[in-house]
């Protein structure tokens, strides 16, 4: 079953077209990675799917319903949750209070404080600590936990590994199976291409807002990925 269908969307920042005709279908249990150089439009895409910024044209469907004109909080109720770039926790709230903000429009499902605390074993001891006293990487982990608290069907993660120690990145990737086994799907942005190719069922490569390459990692030629990632004329540098 297709949980998320994005059909030929354009996204503008003022006069600048940041995304052009982007399409993808993400099925239940599927993990899809969006890769691309800085400025390719990855974060814009994630924010457009989450409803933080409007699309200029095209269509976004969640569970078969058109959500293109719904606002971000309405999309959360439909099962979309975003881990935004830059963490964006509420600095005046504790770790646990930040997690609970994710449950404000909680849907039925496996994720609650207990399951998030199981996933990030260090959190229970720090639950009452003000989030501004957490390290950058700890804040990133709380942002992921907060998104899970809504029990999303579609989890969007922008720059998953940013600020995280390698061991934590591995733990989070290992938990993807646990997340999708409950009928969820994941669309994530990853700067580390080899990591994305190793983890994802499908990879979509953006360059200047356009899809240059898409497919299952096993079917992709590394040189094609490199050309798509950096543009054929730059050769990677």
């Amino acid at each position, binding site marked *: 079953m297709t949980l998320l269908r994005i059909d030929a969307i354009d996204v503008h920042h003022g006069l600048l077209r940041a995304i052009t005709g982007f399409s993808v279908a993400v099925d239940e249990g599927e993990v899809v990675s969006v890769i691309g150089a*800085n400025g390719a439009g990855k974060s814009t895409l994630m924010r457009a799917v989450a409803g933080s910024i409007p699309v200029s044209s095209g269509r976004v469907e969640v569970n078969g319903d058109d959500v293109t004109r719904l606002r971000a909080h309405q999309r959360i109720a439909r099962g979309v949750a975003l881990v935004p770039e830059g963490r964006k926790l509420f600095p005046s709230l504790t770790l646990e209070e930040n997690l609970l903000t994710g449950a404000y429009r909680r849907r039925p499902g496996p994720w609650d404080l207990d399951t998030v605390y199981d996933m990030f074993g260090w959190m229970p001891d720090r639950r009452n600590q003000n989030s501004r006293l957490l390290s950058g*990487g700890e804040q990133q982990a709380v942002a992921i936990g907060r998104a899970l608290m809504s029990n999303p069907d579609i989890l969007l993660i922008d720059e998953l590994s940013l600020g995280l120690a390698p061991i934590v990145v591995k733990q989070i990737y290992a938990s993807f199976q646990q997340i999708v086994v409950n009928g969820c799907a994941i669309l994530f942005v990853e700067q580390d291409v080899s990591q994305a190719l190793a983890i994802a069922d499908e990879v979509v490569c953006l360059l200047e807002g356009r899809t240059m390459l898409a497919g299952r990692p096993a079917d992709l030629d590394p040189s094609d990925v490199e050309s798509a990632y950096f543009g054929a004329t730059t050769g990677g540098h």
Partner: protein
Amino acid sequence: MTAPRLELRDLSKRFGSVIVADGLSLTVPPNQALGIVGPNGAGKSTLFAMISGELNPDRGTVLLDGVDVTRHRADVRAAHGIGRTFQIPRPFEGMTVFENVLVYATAAAGLRKAEAYRLAAATLERCGLGDVANRPAGALGLLNRKRLEVARALGSNPQLLLLDEVAGGLTDPEVALLVDLVNGLKAEGLTVVWIEHVVHALLASVDRLACLAGGRLVADGDPDDVLKDPSVRDLYLGHAGVLEEDLQ
């Protein structure tokens, strides 16, 4: 005998029940590039805050070129020659790139007009930002934002440069450009302490690697040896695969 560029003696700091520095001692000689890795919450950025003067340690001493600066404010330490970057670059977005660096050259390095202008212009060239000097900082892409973060720190004319995850979020070729920049600064005689999770960037640049966990150093020495250390693998890298990938 030349004093170490940076010496930390028995630094301790806690936030409530969380210990972020636990009797930490560390010496960095002039012109060395030291990399620091460690799990999230190990106390790495707090360490930088105590070195640069944004946070006072509960106990212990910070010496710069043999001078005790522990009770000096951040601006005084900047004038002493400490420059630092922050994990999330927050330039003055409405100012130009040049003006951003000029702020540091005047307020932190204490230079007057012509000297400050010269330093800011030279710093931008050094950091590969000459072509975008007159653009608003808010219009920069991530690589140039990171470069500007380094340029602002260099604008204070430091002897000791503290880099906090400047490679995060960059593509591999962008990381390579940043490594070239850091290696160039090192070649010019700067002492560098670099906190980073992009381990291959550190391996391409640093002379020495330390791993911090729970506010203590669990390993310190040759970078390859530190990454092979079982406690570093347990605490930071995890097991299968990561070490081999990072050492390639």
